[in-house]
């Protein structure tokens, strides 16, 4: 391996290479004898393999070749390739549902059919429509209509019964027929429909059916005392039915049946413990205690040495899998396997979330928003195999390659090329699996941390909270602003402004909530309105990135004091997000911090910080001055 010097005497061509979790970036520069730097080109490719492993070589080489091509240089001219000291970071995600709503004895129908019929409250005894004729006059009846009944026939049967003196006060239908039936009744009554399991409604029981006017919600059945009045309950019984009232709050229609021991329960599901070891302590916390309790425990066990979850739970499985993956990655042929016990979970982020789930015992496919906890965990090792990557890069390129510096330090170094930034500066690298922070003090001392939870967790929260079941759509919701397509020629943006088009929009987006991708509007398949989609998106970002920004910065700030920071520079893929940088800046503003998205080299935006930091560090290194490259 030889080094050549084809440039002006004393100048050196170097390439900084940053191997990240998802992208590999390169920065090509020429360094003058005086340490001056001229940047010639940058490049970005996908990282090959898990960061910090020999598989990275291919991606690194292609990043380098790309930068060389852009800078118009050849591999033979390169003096030295500088790689970051990157340790593999692997992150994992899991979600545990921790509550469950159960209806017993078919006490309640609390779903929200889009089109109930009639209006008001009807209280009577439940009777099947086929038996209405046998009913004695004068006793109020709630008519139950099984599947298969045509709306015309059902209305005719009820009208006939009413005509013969039966007092029908309300109806419960299997099909989506409430408006149709109500429109055909001689005497309209409240009707609740789309009750799929209508055959399970107990007959011969006292029941109340309430339907509110369009745009209103029910008043009586969602009020414990309303229920007490309707069913003549004593205080003890009233206490018992209060979960029913709570469950019905906000509905436009509802049915409550009084059965001997019917009940609605809101049960917590035990999902096992999380065991956190750190700061000389071992703390145990129940996952179903929620995010706040878990994060309290994590804070008390800082710095975290390791964490375990209960086997057989999602969290336990996820933590074990993260560990196993890391062990596999670290294994190299011909060497003893890395013991799994060597690999430790170094951070955990818990976030409260909710999951729409079908209610057990429900008659109409009722969906309750159950509480859940999402966890992100992160593992890193001290074992780096970057030297091997450097050797392979050197071999592949025919130029010298070396480890040029530690990632966090280099990121800060690169961030300093952002116009308007000075020491002390902290960087926040908002990635896919982890959020990283590093601080460079006025004195030049650097500290860095990685915390679990970043873009992937945001996607997962959006996906589950909106019940999308499609990660691609969730990614779209995360990345792009929303709009509602109001006609073929205009959309309303999420900020309320209207945009008109000359050419009609494509039919598949008509009347839909859409995300505005660069390729055009793409529909979000959800029944949620634009506002709730937006709320879910922003909350997911806040709970992950804002929380993690504060958490990570506290860990690097002197004495954990955020006020001691002056400049915070946001880097990484999620720093390109259209709202996350503003959300973080807003959260940091009260601490007197200048925060913004980085603009590395004044041109690269939040990209290329580590790669250009490596070049800067090399140019500034005293060992190099006047001495030329060393081997």
């Amino acid at each position, binding site marked *: 391996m030889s080094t050549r010097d084809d440039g002006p005497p004393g100048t050196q061509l170097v390439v900084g290479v940053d191997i990240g979790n998802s992208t590999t970036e390169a920065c090509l520069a020429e360094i003058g004898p005086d340490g001056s730097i001229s940047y010639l080109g940058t490049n970005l490719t*996908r990282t*090959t393999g898990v960061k910090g492993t020999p598989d990275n070589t*291919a*991606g690194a080489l292609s990043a380098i070749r790309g930068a060389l091509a852009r800078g118009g240089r050849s591999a033979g001219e390169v003096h030295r390739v500088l790689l970051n000291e990157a340790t593999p970071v692997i992150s994992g995600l899991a979600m545990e549902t921790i509550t469950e709503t159960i209806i017993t004895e078919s006490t309640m129908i609390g779903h929200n059919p889009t089109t109930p019929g009639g209006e008001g409250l009807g209280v009577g005894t439940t009777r099947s429509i086929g038996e209405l004729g046998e009913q004695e006059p004068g006793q109020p009846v709630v008519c139950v209509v099984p599947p298969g009944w045509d709306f015309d026939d059902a209305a005719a049967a009820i009208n006939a019964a009413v005509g013969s003196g039966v007092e029908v006060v309300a109806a419960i239908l299997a099909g989506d027929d409430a408006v149709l039936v109500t429109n055909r009744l001689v005497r309209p009554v409240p009707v609740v429909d789309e009750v799929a399991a209508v055959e399970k409604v107990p007959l011969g029981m006292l029941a109340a059916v309430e339907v509110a006017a369009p745009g209103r919600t029910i008043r009586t059945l969602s009020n414990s005392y309303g229920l007490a009045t309707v069913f003549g309950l004593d205080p003890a019984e009233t206490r018992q039915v209060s979960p029913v009232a709570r469950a019905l709050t906000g509905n436009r229609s509802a049915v409550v049946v009084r059965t001997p021991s019917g009940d609605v329960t809101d049960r917590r599901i035990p999902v096992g413990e999380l065991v956190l070891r750190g700061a000389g302590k071992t703390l145990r916390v129940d996952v179903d205690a929620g995010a706040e309790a878990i994060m309290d425990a994590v804070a008390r066990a800082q710095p975290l040495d390791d964490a375990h979850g209960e086997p057989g739970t999602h969290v336990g499985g996820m933590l074990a899998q993260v560990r196993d993956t890391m062990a596999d990655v670290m294994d190299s042929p011909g060497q003893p396997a890395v013991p799994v016990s060597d690999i430790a979970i170094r951070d955990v982020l818990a976030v409260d979330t909710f999951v729409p789930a079908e209610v057990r015992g429900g008659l109409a496919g009722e969906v309750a928003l159950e509480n859940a906890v999402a966890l992100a965990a992160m593992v890193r090792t001290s074992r780096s195999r970057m030297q091997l990557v450097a050797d392979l890069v050197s071999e592949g390129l025919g130029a010298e390659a070396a480890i040029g510096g530690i990632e966090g330090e280099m990121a800060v170094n690169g961030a300093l090329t952002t116009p308007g930034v000075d020491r002390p500066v902290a960087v926040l690298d908002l990635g896919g699996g982890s959020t990283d922070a590093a601080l460079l003090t006025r004195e030049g001392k650097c500290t860095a941390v990685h915390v679990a939870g970043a873009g992937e967790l945001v996607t997962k929260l959006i996906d589950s909270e909106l019940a999308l079941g499609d*990660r*691609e759509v969730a*990614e779209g919701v995360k990345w792009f602003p929303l709009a509602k397509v109001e006609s073929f020629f205009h959309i309303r943006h999420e900020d309320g402004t209207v945009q008109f088009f000359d050419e009609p929009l494509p039919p598949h987006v008509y009347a839909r909530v859409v995300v505005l991708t660069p390729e055009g509007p793409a529909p979000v398949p959800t029944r949620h309105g634009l506002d709730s989609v937006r709320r879910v998106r922003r909350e997911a970002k806040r709970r992950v990135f804002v929380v993690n920004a504060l958490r990570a910065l506290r860990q690097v700030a002197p004495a954990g004091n955020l006020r001691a920071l002056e400049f915070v520079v946001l880097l990484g893929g999620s720093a390109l997000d259209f709202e996350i940088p503003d959300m973080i800046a807003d959260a940091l503003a009260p601490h007197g911090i200048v925060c913004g998205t980085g603009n590395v080299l004044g041109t690269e935006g939040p990209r290329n910080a580590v790669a250009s930091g490596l070049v800067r560090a090399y140019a500034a290194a005293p060992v190099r001055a006047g001495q030329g490259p060393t081997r």
Partner: protein
Amino acid sequence: MTSTAPRQSTGHRQSLRTEILEARPVNLDGFVEEWPEKGLVAMESAFDPAPSVRVAGGQIVELDGKLRDDFDFMDTFIANHAIDVASAEESNAIPSAEIARMLINPSVSRNAVLAVTRGLTPAKVLDVVKLMNVVEIMQGMQKMRARRTPANQGHSTSARDNPIQVAADAAEGALRGFAELETTLGVLRYAPLVAIALQVGGQVGRGGVLTQCALEEATELELGMRGITAYAETISIYGTESVFIDGDDTPWSKAFLAAAYASRGIKMRFTSGTGSEVQMGNAEGKSMLYLEIRCVLMAKGAGVQGLQNGSISCIGVPGAVPGGLRAVAAENLVASMVDLECASGNDQSFSHSAMRRTARAMPQLLPGTDFVCSGYSSVPNADNMFAGSNFDTEDFDDWNTIQRDFQVDGGLRHVREDEILQAREKAARALQAVFAHLDLPPITDDEVVAATYANSSNDYPFRDVLSDLKGAQSVMDRGITGLDLVKGLESSGFHDVAENLLTVLRQRVSGDLLQTSAVLTADFVPLSAINDPNDYAGPGTGYRLEGERWEQLKKLRHVTSSTNPETEVG
């Protein structure tokens, strides 16, 4: 209410036999009466024109009873490009019965027939084939097929667009004998990955297999130009001007497109078939076969090397009228008798009746065609993204047995389980290596194992569709070509597969596969109507299933040994 529910009974008392007959699958098929005024008739219609031709000033001025000023664009294109002006009047003057006899007479050479047919008008061609019964049509096909050696084409698709499945099934299909493999997609954006899988899997199964991915023109052409696919055939043409325009094309636009494919070195054939015009309500009162003959001549005039016909996706229409399958057999013959490569249908779900499905294929299987099926489903029909074929993987053993029973070559063969498993496993591994080399979403070892033993897409682990689609996009964005596949295969130790693929790519430069009926043999010899011309001249001549190939086709899954009847051979 599903389309496969049995017919409702009439309420009258039925005989027990009638009940059994009512329950037979054939009675789930639909049949209709003819309506010749509207073109709902196979090939015998009083409304078809009578043949006539007149040449003046070096061009055709009268065609089938119409004067040049009254020509629609099909007439014009056929008159200008398809019919040999010099011989037209003379050829059309020959009595139709004499031409029909030439078609079946072994002592009239194929070339002698072509010398006549190149001057015939559409109505004259119809007049000739109308004289032929189905056995005569088969005899004509036996002689007029362009390539001496018959072949077959397979469909390799996945209901989940799973590339690993496509690779494994392509390998098995190629090993079983398909000379061409075709795929298409449910989610179109998956195309680059599935096309790569088809190419890699195909070359594992048998070097030299040609692959294609049916898509809209721009993407299909691009995949072809990059060498990820090798040929194209879903370029549709129609027999009436109005339906052609409905399809947003004209004979000139399609002729231009044909040259575009050739200019990129890509083999291509057109697609047409009886029934499409009446299906679209614009048959202009002409029989299905007359309109299809116009398509065949239009394809001939465009200079495309071949045609996929045999009703194709409209098979339910001729299949429902009297004499419909005779017309379908005749349209294949017409393609062959004007010297085009014929990929002869049998490629779409056709009947509920196994007996009818088999019978439908006999006029192509027994005489042999360039491709007996233009898509035998080499995946279970539930995975067939061309809406199901007339034959699928469940029919492999039946097909092989019929070949052995009649000593005919339908292009397939029985392959031992161990060889199949080996090919499937290798195809999945090769694709795994290519994906890794190209930095595409990884293929796990579990997926490789699943691919080895799977039947359908349900037997594979779920893929991360989002990552796959991003990967597929990156294949397009990064400009990945067939060469990158070769590099990936070579660098990961699949040297033989890499060589196979490189050899296929090299063919692009030579253009040898552009000639009529060209396929690549396992030895990478281009075999076309030029160097393997059909030389049938009666009993004992032409292609005969004999020698090594016949020994191969004698093998079945279970054949009792004659030397030791307690064991099986093979």
